[in-house]
């Protein structure tokens, strides 16, 4: 019975860790993408200073959580997001709407993809 209990406890613990990390990742990626969507709207209306401030704030939000992302995501994926953030901030600073908007949309897609890859959908499992 001791071994059975140990097995069940470990299995449930792993399940709890998986659900918790998914919930936290979902929450933080949703927060980041909603801010980026706001930045995209601001850039669309040519408020580049506000867009830059929002993107910088979102990037800071992302960097503060890099420990968690490092534990849960592949490092290449996390590095890719950081690299795109850096580019986005540059485009916003330079007021380049033609580069800013597609890059921002791309970054939103990347971040959504990171979260989607962790969800237990059938196409992820298979």
């Amino acid at each position, binding site marked *: 019975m001791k*071994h*059975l209990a140990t097995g069940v406890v*470990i299995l449930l*613990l792993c399940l709890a860790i998986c659900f918790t990390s998914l919930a936290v990742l979902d929450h933080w990626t949703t927060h980041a993408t909603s801010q980026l969507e706001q930045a995209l709207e601001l850039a669309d209306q040519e408020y580049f200073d506000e867009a830059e401030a929002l993107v910088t704030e979102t990037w800071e939000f992302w960097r503060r959580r890099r420990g968690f992302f490092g534990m849960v*995501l592949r490092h290449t994926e996390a590095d890719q997001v950081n690299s795109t953030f850096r580019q986005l901030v540059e485009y916003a600073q330079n007021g380049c709407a033609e580069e800013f908007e597609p890059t921002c949309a791309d970054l939103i897609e990347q971040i959504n993809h990171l979260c989607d890859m962790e969800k237990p959908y059938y196409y992820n499992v298979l």
Partner: protein
Amino acid sequence: MFISYIRTIILYVLLIAAVRLMGKRQLGELEPTEFVVAILIADLASVPMQDIGIPLFAGVIPILTVLSIELIFSVLSVRFRPVRKFLSGSPVMLMENGKILVQNLMETRLTVDELTQHLRAQGILDLSTVQYALMEVDGKISAILDPKYQPPTAQDLQIHVDAAEMPVAVISDGVILDDQLAASGRNRAWLDKQLRHFGCTAEEVFLLTATKSGKLYLCRQEVDA
């Protein structure tokens, strides 16, 4: 490099803990589920060890999951015969009363050369002397000789032999094991007397075992030249 180094230590400790948790069966008798687990765990550990781009949890969570499933299934196997049969199968009779059961041999996909090889490894040359030969669930072949061909036992020869005694290690690698000494019904005074008889100190002894009846086995430390 440093990351790989630290991860290797973490995963090594985790694997040792996992194998200890699964018990001695895992080491001694690799049934199908245990064989799968052994391969899986080794593979799962090697991936985050070598690829530092993958999170460590990507190795730890699968290892813990496999470990927990193995623990659950091993307990269910013990308690429920259908589970045991499903996971491990049943032994298959290969020979009976000196006759090879060809159909069963073919079902196990064992050739007659392999069968005779396994029997030879157990010291059996003449197949007609085999009463039963079975392929066990872990793939080993057990052979029982016809009693006519089995070596006689002390009982058969009506010879009285003393019961076997379990020796207890009282000194191991120069260290006196007081709890073992007490378990064997001895004390330090007795031990000192034995060491004086052997002309050595406890530190000079690699192994000293004693049985209840007082039979001793001494192996001295090897001194570097």
